[in-house]
């Protein structure tokens, strides 16, 4: 059996299924439900076994067409930067407000992906978000939480 990335992912899935199965057994059901033909943990237990079964088959059976991904052909730096930017965006959106956090997220994302035309970066961030907010909040009456704009008095 040749070890490759798909087999490793399958092994991780096998471990996840085993952990899921263990957690499923730990679910506390009502005393009168304990011996019932079906209770809150029945379905998850079957799922745990199913996950282990399919992952096990994938590990054991040979791969006819193994997929090889060359890490040197992948763009890790930009992807990680984007993910980190999204996490910061997600962390600040409630406190800083929709307008500023979204506009800054867009500015940084454009920049990290290699865009250097500042005219377009600005147009497709601050004014774009303002129009989007107007459409959503002003026209479609979808609530948008923005403490900053509320403090300034722009948003009600």
């Amino acid at each position: 059996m040749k070890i490759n990335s798909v087999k490793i992912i399958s092994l991780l899935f096998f471990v996840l299924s085993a952990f899921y199965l263990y957690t499923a057994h730990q679910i506390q059901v009502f005393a009168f439900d304990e011996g019932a033909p079906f209770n809150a943990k029945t379905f998850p237990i079957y799922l745990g076994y199913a996950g282990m079964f399919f992952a096990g088959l994938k590990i054991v059976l040979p791969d006819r067409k193994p997929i090889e991904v060359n890490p040197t052909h992948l763009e890790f730096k930009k992807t990680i930067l984007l993910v980190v930017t999204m996490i910061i965006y997600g962390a600040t959106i409630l406190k800083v407000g929709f307008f500023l956090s979204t506009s800054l997220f867009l500015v940084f994302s454009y920049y990290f992906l290699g865009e250097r035309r500042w005219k377009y970066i600005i147009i497709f961030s601050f004014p774009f978000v303002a129009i989007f907010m107007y459409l959503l909040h002003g026209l479609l009456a979808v609530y948008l939480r923005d403490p900053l704009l509320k403090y300034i008095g722009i948003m009600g």
Partner: protein
Amino acid sequence: MIEGILIGLKTALSFQNLLMVMIGCFAGTIIGMLPGLGPMTAIALMIPITYGFDPATGLILMAGVYYGAVFGGSTSSILINAPGVPGTVATSFDGYPMAQQGKAGKALAIAAYSSFAGGTIAAIFLLIAAPSLSKVSLSFRSPDYFGLMILGLTAVAAFSSKGNFLKAMMMCVLGLMLASVGQDTLSDIPRFTFNTMNLSDGISFVLVVMATFAMSEALTIILKKNDPTKAAKQISLTDLGSIKVSKEETKQMAKTIPRSSILGFIVGVLPGAGATIASFLAYGMERNFVSDEEKEKFGKGSVQGLSAPETANNAACSGAFVPLLTLGIPGSGTTAVMLGALLGFGIQPGPRLYETNPEIFWSVIMSMYIGMVVLLILNLPLIPYIARILAVPRTFLIPMILFFSVTGIYLMSFNNFDIFLMIGIAVVATILRLYDFPMPPLILAFVLGGLMEENLRRSLLISDGSWSFLWDRPLTLCIMISIIIIVSWQIYKSFFQKN
């Protein structure tokens, strides 16, 4: 039925709903045109917006997006040989050579007319088949539903991901696992919440769809250094040539359309088969039907070679609505997203939808048809302008997709946890995509998880814990035999067959 059609027309033709169909078709075309972003991503991005509307309007918008995205996928296949979705791969076989011959406008027109005709014929079939099947499916019981759901999952795993059956089944199980997070529906006992209040309501369907499709698609494009708009830079998107179709070409299409529509609709109804298989089958079938002289033209810009897959994939899209509307069981990833959206509106599709919410049932069917008319009248002449979206650089495109994904979840929950969870799932999905683990089975399983557990619960309680319910009824037995055949065949094919 006539009364139902009139109710549907009245709802679908209201000013607001007509506007939604137009917006949906337009937005769907733009998103579907971008290679890699198919109908599922398009619908996923629209779901948060639809929650502000009443169910009928929301569904009408999504139906418009669906058809627009399929049409958009064909456009990128023809113009830049980069199919937006697998269902339009066969379109590029003859569509792209036509575009290379300077007949891009004509190829787009043939695709649009064929799609329209295929959709029209399929919509008529749907009008006839759906109410009758709804009545038949009223006799289905929990064991049958449970069996049908497993059949749907195995069929999608088998047919939608060639050679990746075990990977697809693992994704099905992962989807079911994600669906089991939260309080048990009957006993309210928390499961897999790890004492976090944020998980007690379970994981939002929109969150999973956004993470596994829109967001992970965007991250995959960056990670793999793909540029979906690269091919568009090499051709003129403004000079596409005439969109007029000659009499001779119309005659050729007239022969192709009926047979491809029937084939497409039947394949679309089957769980898991969908538009991709329908379009390839129609292409192959058409090649066998035409004269030797015409056969030579296949792959070099044949009118019938282009018309057949386009007709079939649109007919299959309508066919896919049959199991969704009549049984409440989606047969494909896209209809699974639609089912998730319906459940979000508090509507349970199935045989009773026809009786309890006729206005929704019929307005969805009628709006699908209106959507096709809109595509033909509005989108076709506007294609030279819409096609310019293909020239938008990825430096702007990717952040926009990520922005819409995060905003979608933010608008629904106003909760940081959901955003972080979505980013986490998207990162995992990106890694899985890299190694060809398919995402549609995960979504289908996630949507069906609750229903599957409910039907298994009923079946086991009725049979007092015995699994004999799987073979007690002839219908359930037939379904189970089909599942065993599919699973055995796929495992045999994957590992023991040379070719």
